[in-house]
């Protein structure tokens, strides 16, 4: 965002256009006397110091840790400063996970100077933890546990271990009751991620406890979750490179078991306390007081929190290179780095610049020598001597962003957030990040055939958007051999889809200019035209005279009674020609004309649809075939710029001129080749999204605690109807998709060419579609059940806050908004 703040003074937009004032400003600036140096208050200084802890590679982090601890203790009497420290320390733990070990180290040092402060830190941490456990905010619980784990050395008795034991007991109970539930594994994940932080803490007697804990978690952690196959990014026919990845939980379990046989080295975690306390003042550590851990309670009923939980798989775009640029999956560093990266990325979505900075600076936050020097070129890794690390910090960081982008069923934030993080990282350190992205793109492209269809669409969408931020430059030459492939080939489909997306963000001529010659044929002359031809301008088109007449009438906004005669004439001719459904023919003339009139821009087409709404709305109920013709007309008018067509179809759905079912039938019911086209997938995806979004909206509306019984029952009925139509819609897709996938829709007979290679590819597309939409259906059903359960578990609110009734109405109203 800084970009537009840094324009030269006076050039800044229109808000400072008074020239006199502008120049006076500049004069003031020049003459400004050396102002007396402003001493910032200590509390501000400490805040800044703590916020920036470990950020600078130029400062010794141990000195920072000691200095902060000392200042805070020296000024113990300053209440504002003391409280600011408590607040910020915990805030850092839950907002900047990389800094947890450093904040913990500050607390360890404080304990040697002003132990009563630690009591307060512990009490606040435990209080917050209890709150988050009740809310089901499991990520935050995990972060607080990591922090407390880092303090294990100054805790009395079992300390954190007893909390872990309670978590495990709860997880076992939950899993015994029902092994499909997802909270139990989430609790085990917290346990497993806390252990390494305890082992890297100053605690001395932890090994036996860790060993036995890891033994006990095995029963849950090693069992692949039943939902795991649902979220596999590379289903079925994967190559060696891209085969079914491992569940994070079982991977981590194995890695911890390995650590337990290896003396718990946990090499990648930093141990800032060690230098300060062991070497600089060895007796301070032993003699500093120990504290009881305030009680942390796992309630009887635990909830899943705001996000539905799914099993997590370990996804990597760099796992199969000849030189290791990221930790191998056998090394615990792979999970530890990934976990804190992913948390950082997902927590800091409100400032992508900060996120990108963290990604670039990752080597500051882990043990020295975990990585090679930043921006070391891949080819140079071979020269790294002995058993020194070849892990590239850029690769590790970028890999984590991709793991979110490619997260099924969906990541925490909108996909565009992850796009923006990669963009910013690339802007901050182009020389380091760009080559890493290049290798990632090549890996993903190589395996695009076996990738889940939804993910290959996500890949394409990101790729085009990313290039649009960097002048559309890509080494297209390396895929030149694939240009000749059939459009049904997934790689070729990827190329075509990406180019189309690029054009949508830019314009055809511009994109054509970025492509080497063999690709240029993919961007036809028609694509470069702003306004596609009106087919009725050609006399040879059937119904050309009527088309021309319709155009003249709609252009001058003629009343309906002048339009009807033209329609009647078309119908009469169609009957003479023995066409099955005359309405289909007249609809084509009508809709094509609307498209042509509205071809100038989206708002033009919207206003022409608005004017013709009544007639369009009347078509669907008369003839499903004519309704499908509306889509046909739009998509064939915009065949060279299908993105615009998809957009219009989307608006027609909002007007309820089209039904979701008609879109589905158009997309999957007729031509198997459509399944390979990205815009068709996009159209269906957004149609399904509207329908599922509607169900979710209504169901969420039921959670408003202040609904009257009548309101609730109305909502419940609406929810059931909406759910039913959602189910029907998925069902409607199932049959034709199964037919494509099994080859029983005989493409050879339909198209007459009988190319068996094409048939095989269409079967593959059918399988991929089927998988995606079966998953989407399963996810919606799972969401519905989880939401219902949550609503049932939610304690009845006794106190009705002011304005709650209004909110209830608002939710009702919202739920009734048209889709």
């Amino acid at each position, binding site marked *: 965002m800084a970009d537009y703040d840094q324009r030269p003074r006076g050039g800044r*937009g229109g808000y400072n256009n008074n020239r006199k004032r502008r120049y006076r400003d500049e004069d003031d600036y020049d003459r400004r006397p050396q102002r007396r140096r402003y001493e910032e208050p200590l509390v501000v200084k400490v805040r800044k110091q703590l916020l920036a802890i470990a950020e600078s590679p130029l400062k010794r982090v141990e000195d920072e840790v000691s200095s902060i601890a000392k200042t805070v203790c020296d000024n113990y009497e300053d209440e504002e400063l003391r409280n600011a420290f408590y607040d*910020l320390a915990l805030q850092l733990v839950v907002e900047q996970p990389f800094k947890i070990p450093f904040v913990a180290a500050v607390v360890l040092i404080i304990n040697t100077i002003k132990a009563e402060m630690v009591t307060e830190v512990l009490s606040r941490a435990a209080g917050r933890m209890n709150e988050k456990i009740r809310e089901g905010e499991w990520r935050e619980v995990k972060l607080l546990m990591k922090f407390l784990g880092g303090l294990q050395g100054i805790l009395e008795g079992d300390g954190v271990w007893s909390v872990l034991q309670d978590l495990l007991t709860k997880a076992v109970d939950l899993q015994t009751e029902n092994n499909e539930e997802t909270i139990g594994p989430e609790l085990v994940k917290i346990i497993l991620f806390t252990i390494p932080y305890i082992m890297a803490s100053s605690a001395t007697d932890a090994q036996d406890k860790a060993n036995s804990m890891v033994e006990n978690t095995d029963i849950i952690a090693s069992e692949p979750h039943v939902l795991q196959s649902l979220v596999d990014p590379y289903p079925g026919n994967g190559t060696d490179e891209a085969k079914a990845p491992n569940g994070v939980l079982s991977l981590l379990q194995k890695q911890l078991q390995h650590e337990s046989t290896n003396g718990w080295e946990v090499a990648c975690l930093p141990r800032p306390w060690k230098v300060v306390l062991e070497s600089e003042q060895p007796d301070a550590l032993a003699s500093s007081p120990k504290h009881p851990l305030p009680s942390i309670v796992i309630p009887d009923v635990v909830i899943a929190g705001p996000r539905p939980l799914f099993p997590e798989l370990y996804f990597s775009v760099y796992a199969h290179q000849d030189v290791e640029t990221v930790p191998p999956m056998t090394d615990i560093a792979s999970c530890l780095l990934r976990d804190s990266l992913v948390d950082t990325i997902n927590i800091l979505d409100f*400032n992508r610049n900060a996120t990108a900075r963290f990604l670039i600076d990752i080597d500051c936050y882990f043990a020295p020598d975990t990585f090679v020097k930043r921006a070391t070129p891949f080819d140079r890794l071979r020269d790294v001597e002995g058993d020194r690390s070849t892990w590239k910090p850029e690769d590790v960081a970028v890999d984590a962003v991709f793991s979110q982008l490619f997260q099924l069923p969906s990541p925490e934030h909108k996909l565009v*957030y992850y*796009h*923006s993080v990669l963009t910013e990282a690339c802007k901050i350190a182009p020389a380091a990040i760009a080559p890493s992205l290049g290798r990632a793109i090549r890996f993903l492209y190589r395996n695009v055939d076996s990738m889940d269809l939804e993910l290959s669409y996500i890949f394409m969408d990101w790729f085009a958007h990313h290039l649009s931020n960097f002048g559309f430059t890509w080494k297209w030459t390396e895929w030149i051999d694939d240009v000749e492939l059939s459009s049904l080939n997934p790689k070729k489909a990827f190329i075509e889809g990406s180019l189309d997306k690029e054009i949508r963000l830019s314009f055809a001529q511009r994109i054509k200019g970025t492509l080497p010659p063999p690709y240029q044929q993919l961007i036809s002359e028609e694509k470069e035209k702003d306004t596609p031809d009106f087919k009725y301008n050609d006399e040879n088109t059937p119904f050309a005279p009527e088309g021309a007449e319709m155009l003249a009438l709609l252009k001058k906004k003629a009343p309906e009674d002048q339009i009807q005669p033209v329609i009647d004439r078309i119908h009469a001719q169609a009957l003479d020609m023995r066409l099955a459904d005359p309405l289909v023919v007249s609809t084509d003339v009508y809709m094509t004309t609307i498209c042509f009139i509205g071809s100038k821009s989206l708002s033009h087409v919207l206003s022409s649809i608005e004017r013709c709404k009544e007639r369009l709305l009347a078509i669907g109920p008369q003839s499903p075939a004519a309704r499908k013709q509306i889509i046909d007309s739009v998509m064939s008018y915009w065949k060279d710029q299908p993105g615009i067509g998809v*957009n219009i179809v989307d608006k027609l759905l909002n007007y309820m001129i089209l039904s979701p079912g008609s879109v589905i039938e158009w997309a999957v019911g007729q031509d198997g080749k459509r399944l390979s086209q990205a815009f068709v997938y996009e159209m269906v995806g957004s149609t399904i999204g509207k329908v599922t979004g509607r169900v979710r909206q209504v169901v969420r509306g039921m959670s408003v605690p202040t609904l009257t019984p009548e309101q609730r029952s109305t909502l419940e009925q609406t929810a059931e109807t909406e759910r039913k139509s959602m189910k029907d819609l998925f069902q409607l897709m199932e049959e034709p998709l199964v037919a494509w996938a099994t080859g029983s829709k005989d493409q050879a007979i339909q198209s007459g060419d009988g190319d068996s290679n094409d048939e095989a590819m269409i079967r593959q597309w059918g399988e991929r579609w089927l998988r995606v939409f079966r998953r989407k259906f399963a996810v919606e059903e799972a969401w519905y059940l989880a939401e219902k359960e949550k609503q049932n578990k939610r304690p009845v609110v006794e106190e009705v806050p002011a304005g709650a009734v209004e909110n209830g109405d608002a939710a009702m109203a919202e739920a009734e908004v048209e889709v």
Partner: protein
Amino acid sequence: MPGVIRNTVDRLDKPSAYYQSRNKRRKYDRENEDRDAKEKTPEEPAEDPLKDATTLYVGNLSFYTTEEQIHELFAKCGEIKRLIMGLDRFNKTPCGFCFVEYYTHQDALDCMKYIGGTKLDERIIRTDLDPGFQEGRQYGRGKSGGQVRDEYREEYDEGRGGLGRAIQAERLKEEEEYGKGR
């Protein structure tokens, strides 16, 4: 620390300095009018007009960027309810800004966070939360019909009509007065 939790890094979904300073200026004017009344209630709990904002002002667009391009990018943050192109008051041609309205406040915030400051049509665009479009605001408020910032701009910007229009006019006048090839 007072009630509101302060994040450890700045948030990108806050209104811009421009919006805030404009508000401050207004508030300052109002305060001058009735200072006494203000002094008694220094912290008026005024309703934040952006609390539920679903509209964004989008700036620094090229004059040639189309609705479709804007739609393509901004739909990545949620379905777009309405898109209003900023037009030159006289020519009715795009003049480099627009309003994008979403269905939800969250989508608008996400757009601030994820799209503001990224490129569209190879220009870094600016987004700002907006209390909502009103008829008339689609027109540039500069003297010559475009945006004010395009009047006195001294840098040449190909995507926004070259030099500032006032400067262009000035140069044209000079050329006419002294003859061409000056």
